């Protein structure tokens, strides 16, 4: 009798650990998708100094351009994704330059409102061309690889790896290259930077390209794991902004940490609280973190 109950306790412990591992993996997947949006958002906020509400719509744009190559033109998914990112850059960068850099407005609030307009235009152009129904890439569903409680399909492994590699690449770019130094300098003091002879306009172009590249990649991975629809970017506005704000908006490193907190807190909470509340829990975690670190997790950096 005693042995049996000890056995049961042991099993319950194993179950709990297994569930925790499963939730952690799921949280990391969610965080990967959010991070690719939040890092670019934070980068543009730090340099262009306004909250670009249309940023998650660049994720949607990447998913649709890839869909066009993959499904409409019949290009295999891998190549379609590369072409899709290129097409998203070709569309997205001029749109961003035109709307945010070339229009004769400067105020933060004006740019914020313009970005809401850009978001509407992007979504409705996509709605006009592709229609409103759910779309998916022409890739078959996969069975998962199973390592104990960890269950991941090859797409999910790709998602985790691509997100990690890109986030690392952004880190190296910011810390090790001349462009990175200029970008960080502009974030600190744009006027001084211009006086010192840095090519601010070119650096801004590079910034939009990096941000849209990350967003488009994130959108493609989102579409690969779930579905593609015109509102997918809009639905991500709140979690992506939360991740960026939690990281101390304007700071790309913070945005990664913010995405991790939002992703993991939401999933872990389902152990004790009904899952319908997991978004609320994620945002409560954000509020709690900001109470102790009001300028964001990475405020010291």
């Amino acid at each position: 009798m005693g042995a049996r109950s000890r056995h049961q306790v042991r099993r319950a412990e194993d179950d709990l650990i297994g569930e925790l591992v499963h939730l952690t993996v799921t949280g990391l997947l969610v965080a990967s998708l959010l991070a690719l949006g939040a890092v670019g958002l934070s980068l543009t906020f730090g340099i262009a100094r306004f909250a670009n509400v249309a940023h998650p719509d660049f994720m949607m744009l990447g998913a649709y351009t890839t869909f066009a190559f993959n499904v409409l033109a019949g290009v295999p998914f891998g190549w379609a994704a590369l072409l899709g990112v290129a097409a998203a850059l070709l569309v997205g960068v001029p749109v961003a330059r035109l709307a945010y850099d070339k229009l004769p407005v400067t105020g933060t609030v004006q740019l914020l409102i313009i970005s809401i307009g850009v978001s509407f235009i992007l979504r409705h152009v996509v709605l006009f061309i592709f229609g409103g129904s759910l779309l998916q890439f022409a890739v078959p569903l996969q069975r998962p690889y199973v390592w104990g409680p960890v269950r991941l399909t090859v797409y999910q492994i790709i998602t985790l790896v691509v997100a990690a590699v890109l986030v690392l690449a952004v880190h190296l770019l910011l810390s090790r290259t001349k462009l990175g130094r200029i970008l960080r300098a502009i974030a600190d003091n744009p006027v001084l930077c211009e006086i010192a002879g840095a090519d601010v306009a070119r650096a801004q172009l590079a910034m939009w390209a990096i941000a849209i590249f990350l967003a488009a990649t994130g959108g493609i991975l989102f579409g690969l794991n779930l579905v593609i629809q015109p509102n997918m970017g809009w639905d991500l506005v709140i979690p992506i902004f939360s991740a960026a704000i939690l990281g101390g908006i304007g700071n790309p490193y913070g945005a990664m940490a913010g995405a991790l907190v939002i992703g993991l807190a939401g999933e872990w909470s389902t152990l004790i609280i009904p899952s319908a509340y997991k978004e609320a829990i994620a945002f409560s975690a954000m509020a709690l973190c900001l109470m102790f670190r009001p300028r964001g997790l990475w405020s010291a950096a």
Partner: protein
Amino acid sequence: MKLDRRQFLATGLAGGAAALVGGRAHAQQEALRIGVLTPLTGGGTVYGTTMSRMYTLVADEINKSGGVAGKQIQLFTEDAQTNPDAGVRGARKLVDVNRVHAILGTWSSAVTLAVAPIAVQARIPLFCVSSSPAISTFKDDDFLYRTAYSQAVISTVYATTAQKLGFKKAALLILNNPYGIGLGDSFPDRFAKVGGTVTGKVIYNPNQSSYRSEIQQALAGKPDVILFGGYTPDGIQVFKEWFQLGLGGTWMGPGFALDQKFIQGIGAQASEGIVVVEGAPNLQSSAYKNADKLYRAAHNQEADFFAAMAYDHLMVVALSVLAGNGNTAGDSIKANIRKISNPPGKVVGSWADASAAIKAGEKVNYEGASSACDFDDNGDVQTDFGVYHIKSGRWVLDRVIKFGELKTT
């Protein structure tokens, strides 16, 4: 042949004049004008298209046999777009411009409830296939009729189905909206009444970045069946992630969510074996056999529940007009609907039989293609249910559950 501009103009004018003359000839006979307001775009497209085709087939059949008391049936079609705004615009046009004598075919409950006041105000009958319980209680002055089931009975249907398929333990994965929560509130009781237990109830929000933890939780109690209470878009995402988790399990859910679009969305392999519950046509009736024959001849497909309901809508309206000696006023149609469709009377199912009996002065009881079409005081009927499972990407009928088999209390 090449037309120059002058010839083209002349041909056009002649054609136009012919149309005008033709139109006047019809107007003298005063057609029976029917408004068709099905969704041809949006979430209800599949059903709306099927229904719209069936209205045309029934109208052709009746018109070929000489029409209703000498009146030809004229259909006016508007696209309800699965959207209440578009539904209201369409209904206004049908009522104000086409001056129709009845509106048939609203699919979404939101559209039906938005259009119903227009029909009531115009005093013309509205036949819908929506499932909201609010349609039973709507103050419609007896102008609103429904040939589909009400959601109020659906929990009982799921419980009965689960019992008949031998499932003892069930879990729920339901959408966080009134429909999902309503199912979550009513199903456990009904399932307990037939000896089942609920191992877990997981509520999910739409538009999440992942449903993996919800799926794992729903499966945690090792249920025999998981009842899905959502719609097609979230269904595709949930089932895609479920399949890719590779955890197994049997699913059951409503036909409007697990439809052909859903199967296309997740593929035949992932949808294999899912149990689908949907209203079933009245398979043994002569009306269904005729509806099926018409639909097969024109579209090479069997008539489904929605096609059968469309058949009944137009038959009931046409027979009511015939029973009123050709009176197309809404109040006269309304007064005759239960007289020709409810017992007692000679059971009829086809236009030929029914119109002959009515002309001979007999009392008829129209036995419909979708159900017995015995309308109660709320304008509701009792439908049977079909239990299907998905096999190689298609629904395959397992069994029919008669309305009488449901333990409703």
